[in-house]
């Protein structure tokens, strides 16, 4: 039931936002609803971490440790993004770039977006999961095209076309899984319930499941941003409003990955880990290679962040390929850490775009000297994304690599380390051009307003805290990992 | 009581060696000049002329360039002091010098190096072109001498299982075969090259040049006068004698006083004087017939020395 309320609140907030013309308090109301989501996520986690899963509506909604964790991820990052949306909308409206009506539209869409993602993670039925993910595609298309410039429209066209194809393939995969389940020997009541799929996993026809899993990885991989279906990602993330980019890059990708994890568990039951490992390793290494190659001579800092997402999705794909409990726990920690850091960076880059008026790397200079707070946030965000302690990405990457070597994927770990080193070098040089340098004479150091710096710094601190303190996340992570690892 | 006498004899031996070298140094210079001038058909100054020069210099007044610091004054003192210190503990006259078991060949070399480093620094302290030139060149030569010297020592030390000087000399007395061994011969050959280079003799440096641009050692000490100059001349000559003494005792150790007693020490002194004079004279003769090498041909010479030493080491090692 709690799960239903969880869905209800953002949806209701969306309706309220739709009903009334945009005011500041609407923004804060949305923020509050996200706060509620976060709290609910924590409550759910406490409820299910050691006990069996909760379910509602005959299992259409089902919350286990993994879902609860994802709810927390959505809540935390959503909170950051929505809280910054207030400022973004105020700016848009006051500068006359968008009317109050469009502001309303924006808030409604964002709430819908959140709701869809929540549905995807609390759905107990893989069909519903698919519907929810597809719904996110449709909603975010409008958000990507929100600015209605030619580039924005181009980005949203590419986004919706590519993702629809991908998601269609995912649907075919789902259908095939269902087919296999139908023909699984000695099963009476067959449905698309994930639990029932898991229960018959061992009887599923291997041939069909191979085809199905391949299609699912390709299909949902498109939404995750795994190469070679990643190509929509840099365009969409660089054109969407900063808060939306934060949400998409920080949460949406990983929600799609969450669905993949569920299917992987089913397929591993039928095929053993070998096949899924092959798929995930291929996708992961491809993504890393693509990210490394395209980051080398990147000229736009939002695209840089987007490719960085491709890299990290590749990393978690490799972690999932390893598939040990440790690996999955590390993957989930990485999901949260990457979400926070990436959200902070996108929001910061939004601020930079506002104050500097350029998205080219070589147009932005000496941020640390000219805008200490903003530059500092950006610098530390990059440090976090490059996987340096104390931020959690370091420890999660370390453990993913450990798991890979442990299951005999040492060569994969080696290759990914090399590619990560290349990425480190290129991002370092881009960051150097943006951050370092002397302040022009006569220009005074600008201070960023508190409502910008506080949430961003808060996000970074959270990212650092979960990287240093084991309690209380550790138990949840392990429990969540055990959900998809038998 | 017995211990006290032992200590006293030790101190006496030390002072004796130092005195011998201090007097012998200038005399050796005189001797070599004499030999040269005779071979060149001149009468030449008396052998004790350098001593007279020293007396005159010590009576003269000392000058120092403007802008020089305490290092300038320290140079000559440390130069002499290092030679004195190593002389006191080395097996020159007696094969069992004071603190003998702690007189180590490496230590001796590094102490001497300290002296030449200080001299090079004080040359730079003069703040003149010549000082810099001299110290730069001598440092270059020193840097290239170092390998040959150390590897030569290593070659001898490996053969004798120790780098302790008295032990090295005594091994020569007890087992003459060691001296005949290719290891030691090659090592000593390169040692000789190094001695010539380090003490600024031909063909490396011309001690009697008066043209600044060709100077190496002379250029360094150009600014010194009076007692300081005297100290430097004294120190240099003492070092030459010390090195030659070491050389001959390692090569033909016979005659070195290997047990206490005035008689043996006296014999040891005579033997030392004889051997050193012989070698010195030979060098002087050799110098008559050689010209100074160009500065940038020197590496070839020193590399030659180095290769000799390395061969020595290898022959010592490979059984």
């Amino acid at each position: 039931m709690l799960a239903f309320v969880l869905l209800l609140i953002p949806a209701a907030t969306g309706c309220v936002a739709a009903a009334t013309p945009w005011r500041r308090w609407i923004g804060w109301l949305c923020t509050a609803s996200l706060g509620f989501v976060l709290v609910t996520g924590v409550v759910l986690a406490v409820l299910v971490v050691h006990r069996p899963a909760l379910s509602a509506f005959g299992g259409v909604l089902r919350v286990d440790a993994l879902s609860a964790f994802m709810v927390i991820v959505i809540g935390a990052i959503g909170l950051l993004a929505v809280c910054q949306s207030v400022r973004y909308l105020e700016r848009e409206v006051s500068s006359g770039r968008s009317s109050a009506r469009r502001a309303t539209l924006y808030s409604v869409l964002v709430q819908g977006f959140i709701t869809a993602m929540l549905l995807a993670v609390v759905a107990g039925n893989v069909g519903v999961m698919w519907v929810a993910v597809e719904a996110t595609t449709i909603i975010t298309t409008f958000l990507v095209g929100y600015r209605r410039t030619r580039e924005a429209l181009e980005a949203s066209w590419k986004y919706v076309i590519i993702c629809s194809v991908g998601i269609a393939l995912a649907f075919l995969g789902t259908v095939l899984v269902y087919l296999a389940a139908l023909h699984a020997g000695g099963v009476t009541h067959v449905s698309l319930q994930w639990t029932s799929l898991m229960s018959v996993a061992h009887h599923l026809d291997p041939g069909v499941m191979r085809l199905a899993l391949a299609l699912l990885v390709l299909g949902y991989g498109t939404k995750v941003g795994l190469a070679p279906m990643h190509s929509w990602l840099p365009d969409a993330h660089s054109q969407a409003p900063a808060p939306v980019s934060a949400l998409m890059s920080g949460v949406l990708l990983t929600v799609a990955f969450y669905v993949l994890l569920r299917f992987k568990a089913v397929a591993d039951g039928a095929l053993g880990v070998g096949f899924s490992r092959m798929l995930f390793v291929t996708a992961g290494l491809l993504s890393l290679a693509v990210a490394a190659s395209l980051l080398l001579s990147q000229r736009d800092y939002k695209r840089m962040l987007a490719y960085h997402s491709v890299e990290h999705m590749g990393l978690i794909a490799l972690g999932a390929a390893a598939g040990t409990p440790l690996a999955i726990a590390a993957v989930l920690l990485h999901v949260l850490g990457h979400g926070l850091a990436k959200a902070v960076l996108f929001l910061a880059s939004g601020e930079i775009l506002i104050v500097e008026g350029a998205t080219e790397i070589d147009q932005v200079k000496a941020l640390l000297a000219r805008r200490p707070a903003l530059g500092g946030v950006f610098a530390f965000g990059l440090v976090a994304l490059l996987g340096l302690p104390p931020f959690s990405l370091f420890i999660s990457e370390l453990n993913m690599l450990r798991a890979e070597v442990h299951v005999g994927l040492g060569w994969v770990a080696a290759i990914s380390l090399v590619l990560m080193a290349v990425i480190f070098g290129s991002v370092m040089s881009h960051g150097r051009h943006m951050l370092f340098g002397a302040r022009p004479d006569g220009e005074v150091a600008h201070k960023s307003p508190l409502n910008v710096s506080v949430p961003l710094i808060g996000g970074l601190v959270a990212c650092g805290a979960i990287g240093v303190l084991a309690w209380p996340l550790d138990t949840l992570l392990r429990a969540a990992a055990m959900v998809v690892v038998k | 009581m017995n211990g006290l006498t032992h200590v006293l004899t030790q101190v006496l031996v030390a002072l004796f060696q130092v005195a011998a070298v201090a007097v012998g140094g200038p005399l050796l210079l005189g001797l070599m000049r004499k030999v040269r001038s005779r071979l060149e058909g001149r009468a030449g100054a008396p052998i004790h002329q350098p001593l007279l020069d020293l007396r005159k210099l010590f009576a003269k007044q000392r000058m120092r360039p403007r802008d020089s610091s305490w290092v300038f004054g320290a140079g000559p003192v440390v130069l002499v002091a290092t030679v004195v210190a190593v002389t006191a503990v080395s097996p020159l006259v007696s094969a069992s010098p004071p603190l003998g078991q702690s007189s180590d060949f490496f230590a001796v070399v590094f102490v001497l190096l300290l002296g030449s480093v200080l001299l090079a620094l004080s040359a730079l302290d003069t703040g003149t072109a010549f000082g810099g030139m001299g110290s730069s060149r001598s440092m270059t030569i020193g840097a290239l001498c170092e390998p040959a010297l150390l590897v030569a020592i290593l070659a001898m030390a490996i053969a004798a299982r120790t780098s302790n000087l008295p032990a090295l000399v005594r091994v020569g007395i007890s087992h003459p075969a060691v001296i005949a061994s290719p290891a030691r011969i090659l090592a000593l050959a390169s040692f000789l090259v190094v001695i010539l280079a380090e003490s600024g003799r031909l063909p490396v440096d011309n001690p009697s040049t008066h043209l600044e641009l060709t100077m190496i050692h002379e250029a360094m000490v150009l600014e010194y006068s009076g007692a300081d100059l005297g100290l430097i001349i004294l120190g240099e000559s003492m070092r030459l004698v010390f090195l030659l003494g070491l050389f001959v005792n390692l090569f033909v150790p016979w005659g070195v006083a290997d047990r206490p007693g005035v008689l043996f020490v006296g014999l040891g002194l005579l033997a030392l004087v004889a051997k050193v004079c012989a070698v010195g004279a030979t060098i002087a003769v050799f110098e008559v017939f050689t010209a100074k090498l160009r500065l940038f041909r020197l590496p070839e010479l020193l590399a030659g020395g180095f290769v000799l030493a390395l061969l020595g080491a290898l022959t010592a090692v490979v059984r």
Partner: protein
Amino acid sequence: MNEVYVVTVGLAGLIAAILGGALPLASRVGAAVALTWLSCGAGIAAAVSVLSSGHVISLSTTAILPLTGVTLVLNPLGALFVISISVVALASTLYWLGYASHGLDTRSASSALPLFVTSMLLVPFAASVATFLVLWEMMALTSLVLVLTDQSRREAARSAAQWYAVMTHAGAAAILLALILLSAHSGGQTFADIEAHARHLSGAVRGTIFVLALLGFGSKAGAVPLHVWLPKAHAEAPGPASALMSGAMVNLGIYGIILVGNELLGGGPVWWWLLVSLLGVVSALYGALYAATSSDLKRLLAYSTTDNMGLVLIALGASGLFGAVGRPTTAAIAMVAALLLLINHSVFKGALFLAAGAVQAATGTRDLDRLGGLMRRMPVTGVVFFVGALSVAALPPFNGFVGEWLLFQGLLHGLPTSNTSVVISVAVAVAALALTGGLTVAAFVKATGIGFLGRARSIEAAEAHEAAITMRLGAAALATLCLVLGLVPMLVLPAIERAAASAGRVSATSATGGWISLHLLGLRGVLAPSLLAGGLAIAVLVVIVIRRLTHRRSHAWPAVNPVEPWGSGRKLQTARMQYTATSFAEPLQRVFDDVIRPSRDLDVSHFVESRYYIERIAYHTSNDDVLERHFYRPFIASVRWWGQRARRLQNGSVHRYLAFGFVALVIVLVVVA
């Protein structure tokens, strides 16, 4: 009690960092320094208790670091490193009090420096893969922040920081791979588990792990050819930071090699150690050569760090070799020599960098060709540098000498042996050592003579003022330590032997006859540094007395009167006529022309009226790192080229993007079917 020390080290450093970031300008540095001292004190206390009792301190919790937890164990080897780091840290932080006003009092610096010190102190404690790597990366990150202190003013600092960041990250990646290979093949991730299981690994895996670790840690220790970042970063870092990096951080590179090679893997075949010695020989020669020919004071010091780490690696390699061919005694001597060299290096290199920092703070330049005459302007700093220079040149009575003597003893007593490769490598090592020694002497005569003696070559140098009192104290403390350790190395030798025993599993090697002389057990090798020094001192006194006595009363007072130096008849000589660092190094540079390949160009401009009258002659020579020029630059260029090519992947055509997916789908179907 011991656990309290450990916790104090961490907490004090953390609080120092927080206060350094939070407090106002006035109290920032003071508070940070005080707490850093507390942290260092606790570290020393823990280390001393370990070294004296021989019992390890161990502490572990799962409340910190998710999924892994933290494990801290301090064994004698680690304790030795903790002490060496603490000493340098105490001195440099004291020095920092005075240096802060030269741009090192920003919030970032004031919180990064304590954190840097603490993470370095804790690295030897780390006893699990995750703990070690976290601390290692913290160390790298904080030092990077310090290198960036001057970034807004100096482009050089920025590029140095980038080189440092990338190289150190690549190194860290190698280390990470090595450690996780170890942990993956042996159950848990604590070093205890690893040590227990490492025996059973296959030779190939062990070899891979060792080589990876050697590369990673070697780059941190500045071993050629992985050294490129070092002369840049160490030179650009502000005074105290560069002292810490060069005096303390590089030690941890060596620590890592010992940790993996000797402790975790428990020694290995001959070829490992041949590799180590080779690395050492190359580093020593290369570093010494560039130190001798470079004319930037701090760059020179940095290259000499590479050189000294080369010596340490040679000693390590020799120890391993002798161990592998069954010469435990000499192996132990070599290991002790390695550790002694390392500690000595910390002390004198710390002193040298602090002095160099003072010079830079006073004159605003590091270019030797613009310095000179500082011995009189800044007497204390000058003397400190002088002492440091003599120590690094391994001249008695200072500490550098004892270490090299021990190394020579180890090498010569290791020979002769039946194993030819060992023989050759040792002979080569000795030759390299000797040449290195000579070059180092030349380098530091140049540094001292050109930098501090003679006349000032620029206005800044002529008007330099002596550094602040705390700076002088910090530097002088280390200089004094150089002398003390040179006179009585027995102060540290027992500790070093205990550490060597815990690292290389060997027995004690040298007995110290009281405080006087140092005997090598079972070998005929004795050194009495204090007697040597005493004799030297007496001799000096005697000579001085003689010189005074011979001085005639008739001469006017003062005994020595300053005059214009001789300029071959030219009346007045200017400071520009002096030899510069470049000209001083010119002969050496010519001798080693084929190695350094300096770029020279001479341009002569004539008067327009007549070609026979020359207006001016300009002679430029630059010797930037030959490896950087001929290896790293081309490599970077090729990577950039690939980056340009790869942009075609994302050319904006939606058809191409869809084609990617389509091809992928077809391939998948073909594969699956």
